Each structure stands twice: as C-alpha cells, then as structure tokens.
C-alpha cells in the first residue's frame, strides 16, 4: 500500500501548476561527466543572466535559469528534459555537450514542439540530417571547423596523411569531412594510416608507434582532453612530430591546451580560442566583465554559455513573446553580438555563424598559446544551401 500512497502523492505534486512570472530557461548538461568544459560554461551563462536581469530583464520579466545534470546519456537526458518541460514548465530548452545526447534532446524538442538551443554538441547531424524546426545550434560544427583547417592543410602540399580520432560520432564525422574536403582541395592526396581509439582510452605509445610506421608527412587528429595529452607526450618523446605537421581540431581551446604546459607541441595547426590576445572591443568588454565576476580567465566554454543565454534573450526580445512558434521564427535570421563579433542564426539550417580561431600552437614561458591566428567566420565555411536542403529533407 505504501507504493500506492507514494504514487498518489507524486501525482498530486506534479500535476499542480507552477505559477511564475519569470521566463524560465531549462538548461541540461553533463556537468559531472565533462566538468573541465562545463564549469566555465556555467559561469558564462550566469554572467549573461546577471547582465540581462540587472538591465531590467526581457519584456519586463526576469530570466530564470533552471539547470539539471543530464548524466551524459541520451536516456537520462530525455527524462530530464521532459521534467523541465512538464514540471518546471520552462519556456526554452538549452544546453547538452556530447553529440549523441544533443541529438536525443533535439528529437524530443521536435516531438514536444519546444525550442531547443543546442549550445555545445558539434555533430553535423543536429542541423542537417536530423535537423528539425525547433532545434538551433550555436557552436561551429565539426564540418565547419574542419573546413577552417583544410585551406591551411592544402597549402602545405603534403602527400601522405595519417589520421587519428576518438571513435564516436564527433571523431568519425570530423575524419569523414576532412578526407572529403582535403581530397577536393588537393587531388591525389593519400591517407596512409588511420587509428581510432575509444574515447578516453587511447593507448598512446602503441598508437604513436603505429602512425610513425606509416611514415606520414602530416597528421590530422581530432583528439581532445586526456587522449590529446597522452598523444602529445608520447609523440614528443618518440619524435613523431619532428618531421610531420599536425592538424588538430579543438586543441587550441584553453580547456585542452592549458594542461599541456611545457609539452605544448609547437607549430601544430589548431582551432581554438586565444583568449589573452583577442583585442576587439566586444571581446575586451566580455573578458573584463568575466574577470570581474569570477576572478578567472574565460575558457571556450565560458563564451559558449554566455552567448547561448544572450541568444535566447535576443530571440524573446525580437519575438516580443515567449510562445515557442514565435521564438522559432524570431531566431531564424537573428543577428546578435557575441564575444567573437557579430553572428547570425542561419534560417536555412538553424546554425549560428559563430566561428573559431585558427592558428598555430607555440610555447610562451612554459605555457601553451596560439600564434599566427585569425578569426574564421562561420558564415564562410558552409556547404551550399541546396546541399543543406537536401540533407534536411525540406
């Protein structure tokens, strides 16, 4: 009987409507699984929230952030998102980190007709093959970041390429895009070795050895976090990088670059975020506010969290309402300012044009940093609209 009692209690609790004048942003993310990226991300979100609310909120109402941990699995994420929609009655869903989790929540958003702003997941599918009316994505996708690196790779005219990537959605699609784009830009290029260790479980010594045996002229890698650090240390010791140029997605982001310290491999081409060197007025303003609030420097995650909250606020302001359909229409083509400069939310595939910084790694005073960098605007690294429409089946 106790169970029946509990169930009835629960039913009473959850069916009572939650009344609130605040606009609720329901945010879910894998805080326990990827803390290195997501703690700065959370700080960025909170900074943006405080800025907006101290300026009077949006439409005269305060923004309220309801955050949940999604456990890093699609199943848990869907349950948490459902809780945010049904019980918390949030106006917007946002967040997620891993590609598979982002895809699961995007699917739910489509079924439940709720706006979902995927801030971090990099998979191309979330705006292309699996794209839907209610899902928008902030960060440059794997395709875009690969496309930013390919012109530099093609310039070097290296013939023999080896590839190493973490064996899941992100690494696989980065590798596929790289092969396709480089073969187009430089016909006759050869891919001589491929290593695909499981995420977080690279056996770096053996992998570096196997790559070296193929005698490549250059290496393309999409490793990050602990895998990247192990790969770099073994590669340095075993001399893999002495005669090869390496291209590595994401390796310039402070989250993944800072732990390398004096191991930082010089000359690598990477995408990332050279926070200490960007001197645009919008970035200076952001960094000053962030430092003042948190007494720490921003990471890539901080920028993502900060911009995501401002994007939602911008959409509500433009829609002049919090109805989902109106916000969806408002986000299409929304222009806004970000710490990286102005960005636009593309109507064709719901992808923002936020870019990334492309440059080379260098060591300065025992720490890793980016040199020769430039900002690659996300608007310039996209396939044609026709191709996208075909993928989105619209």
């Amino acid at each position, binding site marked *: 009987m106790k169970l029946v009692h509990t169930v009835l209690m629960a039913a009473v609790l959850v*069916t009572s409507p939650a009344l609130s004048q605040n606009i609720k942003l329901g945010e879910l993310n894998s805080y326990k699984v990827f803390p290195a990226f997501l*703690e700065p991300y959370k700080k960025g979100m909170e900074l943006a929230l405080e800025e907006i609310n101290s300026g009077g909120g949006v439409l005269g109402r305060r923004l309220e952030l309801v955050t949940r941990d999604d456990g890093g699995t699609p199943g848990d994420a869907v349950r948490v998102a459902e809780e945010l929609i049904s019980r918390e009655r949030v106006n917007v869903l946002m967040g997620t980190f891993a590609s598979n989790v982002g895809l699961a929540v995007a699917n739910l958003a489509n079924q439940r007709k709720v706006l979902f702003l995927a801030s971090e997941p990099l998979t191309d599918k979330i705006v292309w093959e699996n794209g839907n009316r209610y899902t928008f994505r902030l960060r440059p996708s794997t395709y875009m970041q690969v496309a930013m690196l390919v012109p530099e790779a093609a310039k070097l005219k290296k013939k023999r390429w080896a590839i190493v990537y973490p064996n899941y959605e992100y690494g696989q699609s980065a590798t596929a895009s790289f092969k396709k784009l480089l073969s187009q830009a430089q016909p006759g290029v050869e891919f001589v070795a491929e290593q695909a260790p499981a995420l977080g479980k690279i056996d770096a010594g*053996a992998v570096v050895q196997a790559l070296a045996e193929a005698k490549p002229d250059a290496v393309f890698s999409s490793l990050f976090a602990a895998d990247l650090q192990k790969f770099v240390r073994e590669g340095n010791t075993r001399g893999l990088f002495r005669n090869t140029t390496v291209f590595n997605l994401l390796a310039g982001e402070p989250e993944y670059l800072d732990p390398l310290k004096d191991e930082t491999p010089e000359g690598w081409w990477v995408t990332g975020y050279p926070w200490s060197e960007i001197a645009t007025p919008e970035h200076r303003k952001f960094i000053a506010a962030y430092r003042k609030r948190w007494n720490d420097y921003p990471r890539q995650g901080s920028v993502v969290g900060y911009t995501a909250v401002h994007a939602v606020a911008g959409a509500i302001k433009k829609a002049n309402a919090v109805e989902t359909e109106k916000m969806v229409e408002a986000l299409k083509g929304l222009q806004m300012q970000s710490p990286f400069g102005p960005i636009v939310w593309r109507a064709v595939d719901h992808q923002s044009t936020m870019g990334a910084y492309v440059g080379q790694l260098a060591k300065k005073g025992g720490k890793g940093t980016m040199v020769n960098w430039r900002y690659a605007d996300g608007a310039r690294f996209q396939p044609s609209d026709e191709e996208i429409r075909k993928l989105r089946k619209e």
Partner: protein
Amino acid sequence: MSGSAVLLQFLNGLAGASSLFLVAAGLSLIFGVTRIVNFAHGSLYMLGMYVAVWSAGTLGFWAAVLAATATVALLGLVLEMLLLRRIYRAPELLQLLATFALVLVIRDFALWAWGPEDMLGPRAPGLRGAVEIAGRAFPQYDLLLIVLGPLIFLFLHLLLTKTRWGILVRAATEDREMAGALGVNQRWLFTGVFVLGAALAGAGGALAVPREPASLEVDLSVISDAFVVVVVGGLGSIPGAFLAALLIGEVKAFCIGLGYSKITLAVEFIVMAIVLVLRPSGLLGRPQAVARGPAALQPMLGQFSSKAILSLVLLVGVLAALPAFAADYTLVLMGDILVFALFAVSLHFIMGPGGMLSFGHAAYFGLGA
C-alpha cells in the same frame, strides 16, 4: 609490420602490461582474501595519480610517488576499519553498492580538491627522453616500467611464500573459514591485505603520471581493465594476474600495430571470453572453496495473501487509469519506474533463485533497447 616494428610494439605491450599488473594485483589480492569486489580500486588509483601530480611540484617526482603510495595506503587502512569491516558478511551486491558509493565520494572529493581540469604531471627526472631501439625512439620511462612490473611481482611472490604473514594470507585465500578455525586473527589479516592492495593501487596511479594526465574519468576506466585482468588470471591469483596483464597488454598493442585500433575495447573481453571457455576459473585460478552451511538460495516468491493480491489489482487499476488525469511528466516518471521495476525483477530472478551474480545484466537491458 617489419621486424623492428614488431619488436617496438612488443615493448609497448610489455610497458602497458606492467601498469595493468600493478592495479590488478591489488584488486586480486583483496578479492582473494576478503571476497570483496572492490569497485573503488580504480578510485584509489586515481587518488594516487592526483596526489603524485599535486605533490611532485614540491617534493620532486620520485618522492611524490612514495608519498602517493603512503597516502593511499593510509586511506585504505581507514576505509577498511570504518567501512569494509562491517560488510564482509553482507550479500555481494551490498558490498558492490558500498564500494561503488566510495567511487562517487572519491570522485567528488577529487573534483573539489583539484578542480575539473586534467592535470598532466611532470616527466620522471632522469628518464625524460627516449633511447633508440631498432632505429626507433622508445621512451626511457617505459623501459623502467617493463622492469618494474616483474620486480613488484617478485616482491609480492616472496612476500606471500616466504613470510609468515604471506602464509596466513594464502591460507585465508584457500579456505577462509578453516584459517579462522585454526586461530588466525582474520581481522588484522584482512586489514593488512586491504592496505597492501590500496598501496599497490596508489603506486600504480603515481607511476602512471609520466604517461597520462590525472583526470576524473580515470577511476572507472581503470577498474574495468583491472577486472578483466583479474578474471582472466583467475580470481585471487597473483601469478595469474601477471600472466593475464601480459596477455592483454600484448594483444592490445598488436591490435593497434596492425591497424585494428577500433576493436581494442572489445578485444580484452574477447580474450576474457576465450580464456573462460577454455579454463572456467581463469588462467591460474582454482575453483572457489565451497561455502559451508545451508545454501543461501532464496524462495522465488512467497504465497500471496489475498490482501496483497487485492492491492496489486488496485495498483494496476490506478496505473492504467493514470494517463486519463495525470500530467505528461508523471507518465514519463511512471514509465521509468515500471521499466526499473521490471529490470529489478529480472535481476532478482537471476540472482535469487538462479544464485548467479550477474555483472553484465545491464548489457541485456542495452541490447533490448
């Protein structure tokens, strides 16, 4: 693969095997004597890494390894006396749950103490570079690991065969109750074994520092590797763990060398499956001593009282009517509760009446999904 490439991958495999052996030996030792599957063993390894990286700045690397080993051993002492001592007689699943709780506590502690960012430790002083072997560079530190694995194995072997303490430990591994009946003070024996096991885990973590960063994901990834090694080697057998570590280290290195990097995750389990089919107790394991006393099988289901049946019917009725009036979230929640209830019943079915402790039960769940 050329001859020299084969040699290099062989050495890579040996180095990997040594670090595997350090963790697995502790786990196997603890299980052999106390029959506790210590899920938190990987967390002790992780703590060893963090303490070593953290103290290497002030103490220097080699002293940091000793400090990490000592710290983790001390923690092992405290854990054994405060927690494990109370649950030796508890059902296996409870022990698993308790040590799994430790995993969560230790991970949160590491997050609080050292922050979320990975910490790449220093290289080992004196062994920073590489030596040339067959025209290829091979890290000096890996050579040290290759030597260290067998040395520690030898140390453990002598400890277990030549000392009085070791003889008692072996007696307890063989037949715990008989050892107890002959007047061996099991309490301190168990404590000693757990501390030694923890120290091995701490040392394993500290010695891994020059090869990999301390990160919060290390705990579970290490424990799963260590489990495979312990099971393949035979539960409780140190020489078995050594052999199994060698086998798995080499198989993995050659998978990568031959370009089959995608299957390294699966391959250790394939090795495990093959070994267990050929030798059900592992490479050097012996069947466990038979538990004395009445068999601990549980009755499947008691007879239902009419009251219980009535409330069940009522519950089904309430549940069936729920979609009519409950909110969406309630339905999702109820769906999840029922799924877990079904899962729990199936697990109970295997463990209770079947008497099997099924570790891979969640895999069937995943397959079904």
